[in-house]
């Protein structure tokens, strides 16, 4: 099943503003229409249409057996999804929020991720786990986690995060079509982001495992995904407008963390010679560490500076009133770019001296 299964409409339909949430809903609807084995289930996904309304209308259109409100139990949702996949269905389950996926962790890690391997390929797990994820929406405790590092550290899971309306549709179709389990991370704060889009003729997008250069540049490469993509693009525009430094930043949207598109990243960094990885997830043992290591391995002789990371702090996700201090923003990204040894001498990070002095916190 490809992402371009829809017939082009006879009359070209105008592209209209659509939100990422709508594109995701449309992807589910089209996948269900195209394949009777696609079943959507989870907490509040039926009658309510999901707390973010992504599954709105699916129960009405396809009936409660195809779009089902389950009992409130994430381990049960993922565990039954495993059984349904064993019997040939293609489950698409929703974890209501990032931090509420954790009760299902055992099923995900012990079964979903390794069933193909355990059964020597006889029992693939073609299921999709949709997870509204990340912060920036003023959510109280447990509603804003960036949990991708756990999933990335689990061999057998694909980990995908769209950042655009077109990708939301195309990547979710690809995830559902995939014969491997996909953890599909939907950046909550981009649910309401808009782009001109045509549901009759959704843009063909590259499949899972391909990164995309969102902005061409020559000075340095910002490598990011999901909710931080618009922030990096904004940072790139801001520095262009700011005549003083005038960096021309390239921005790569990874789109999929597993598989990781080393080629696109390495080609870019070899060209620019400098790289900053940006994500919301805590920096320590986070995705940026893996990415930076791979860049160093592949591009060492092309690098003008160490690969830097701009990440969430190494703290439990903060309360709404402080989350703006936690999330990587334009200033913090440009500050990292400024530290990429433009003058050949290493530039001290502001405050790092104090940090080494062991200032109390």
């Amino acid at each position: 099943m490809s992402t371009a299964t829809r017939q082009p409409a006879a009359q070209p339909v105008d592209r209209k503003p659509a939100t990422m949430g709508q594109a995701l809903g449309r992807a589910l609807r089209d996948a269900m229409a195209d394949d009777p084995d696609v079943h959507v289930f989870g907490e509040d996904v039926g009658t309510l249409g999901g707390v973010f309304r992504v599954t709105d209308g699916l129960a009405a259109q396809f009936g409660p057996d195809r779009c089902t409100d389950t009992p409130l139990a994430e381990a049960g949702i993922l565990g039954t999804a495993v059984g349904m996949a064993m019997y040939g269905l293609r489950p698409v389950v929703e974890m209501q929020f990032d931090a509420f996926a954790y009760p299902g962790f055992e099923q995900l890690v012990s079964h979903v991720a390794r069933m193909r391997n355990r059964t020597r390929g006889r029992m693939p797990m073609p299921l999709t786990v949709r997870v509204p994820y990340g912060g920036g929406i003023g959510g109280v405790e447990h509603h804003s986690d960036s949990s991708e590092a756990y999933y990335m550290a689990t061999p057998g899971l694909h980990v995908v995060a769209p950042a655009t309306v077109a990708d939301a549709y195309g990547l979710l179709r690809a995830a559902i079509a995939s014969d491997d389990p996909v953890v599909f991370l939907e950046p909550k704060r981009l649910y309401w982001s808009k782009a001109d889009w045509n549901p009759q003729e959704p843009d063909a997008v590259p499949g899972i495992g391909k990164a995309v250069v969102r902005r061409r540049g020559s000075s340095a490469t910002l490598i990011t995904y999901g909710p931080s993509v618009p922030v990096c693009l904004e940072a790139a525009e801001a520095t262009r407008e700011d005549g003083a430094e005038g960096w021309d930043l390239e921005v790569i949207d990874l789109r999929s963390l597993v598989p990781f598109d080393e080629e696109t990243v390495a080609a870019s960094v070899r060209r620019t010679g400098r790289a900053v990885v940006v994500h919301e997830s805590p920096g320590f043992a986070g995705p940026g560490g893996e990415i930076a290591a791979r860049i160093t391995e592949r591009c060492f002789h092309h690098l003008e500076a160490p690969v830097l990371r701009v990440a969430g702090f190494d703290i439990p996700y903060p309360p709404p009133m402080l989350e703006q201090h936690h999330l990587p923003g334009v200033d913090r990204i440009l500050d990292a770019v400024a530290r990429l040894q433009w003058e050949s001498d290493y530039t001290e990070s502001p405050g790092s001296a104090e940090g080494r002095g062991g200032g109390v916190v």
Partner: protein
Amino acid sequence: MSGVPRLPAPQPTHEEVLVMTVLEQPGAYAPAPPPSWRPRTDAGPLLPDTEPYRVLGTRAAGRREGSGPEAELLRRLYAAVVRGRRFNEQATALTRQGRLAVYPSSRGQEACQVAAALALREHDWLFPSYRDTLAAVARGLDPVEVLSLLRGDWHHGYDSPGTRVAPLCTPLATQLPHAVGLAHAARLKGDEVAALALVGDGGTSEGDFHEALNFAAVWQAPAVFLVQNNGFAISVPLAKQTAAPSLAHKAVGYGMPGRLVDGNDAVAVHEVLCEALDRARAGGGPTLVEAVTYRLEAHTNADDATRYRTDDEVEAWRAHDPVTLLEHELRGRGLLDEATVREAEEAAEQQAAKLRERMHQDPSLDPTQLFAHVYAEPTPQLRDQAARLRAELAAGEETR
């Protein structure tokens, strides 16, 4: 799938099967399993009533005298639910004014909230969920401190060890094993302490609910579980949540008594909880209480309840309102004069006004405190991050 066998025809009777298998087995033949399998408890006494236990508006209530400790309790419960209702209204209003990030209202559930708080003794512990701010407030905690989480202020605002109220818990049912562990620990230490854990109907589907109840029963921990069955888990009605005869019936499978009670009848809930807590403290083990109630408001201010329930249903529950039930009873027994009503309403209004005033002041959170309390001692990395944030903040001050 093709080629899959259909369900088999009805099996031969038990006896026939046995005969078929033992024919090949020489030696001793015992048709029934040995006695060691037998259940160790009689299920009968554990079973809940078929109808929710009620006191208000029943003859049992009429028999009570017009004065004495019972009258006193009725008046206390009444004052507390009036205050509780007003608290809920005020918190909802504050949410509309942007002063709370979110508010899961317990409007309609005030009897459970208040009864839970008043049933506790000083050294008992309460384990609330996000919907149980009122229970904590009714226990005497500072409302502003209790609302810290929902305000978007620090995740937790009150002194848990000092108040013996665990932090409001958002991941569903995860507080239940904590309550069991704490209650068990108290017993190991020889303390006469019970833990009362609150959970919703939806939360009973989580694995942690099962594990907590099983541990509690096996350990005979002094824990009481109060399920506020308010009809819904966000949009999902109880019928999609469980096929059990009642949630209280679940107790039987763990070997603890299940009690079914009218959750809008503050006196009934209070009585059932007091009995269960007394039994727990005395070493009699845990109890599961299902309180049948209704969430009159949407799940939170962010929810649209019209998507999944009808006004008729809500109206029917409005007629069985916890505040009215108590008021009716008190008036019927001549325990409520206008002065008492005015007193309760004034106290409620005062509490609300104070809350309003305090919540309209912006809290000032120091961002550099984000790095405190992640560990007992911050790691070198955290120190570095704190220093960077401080530098950022200082730079921000300069450019301003």
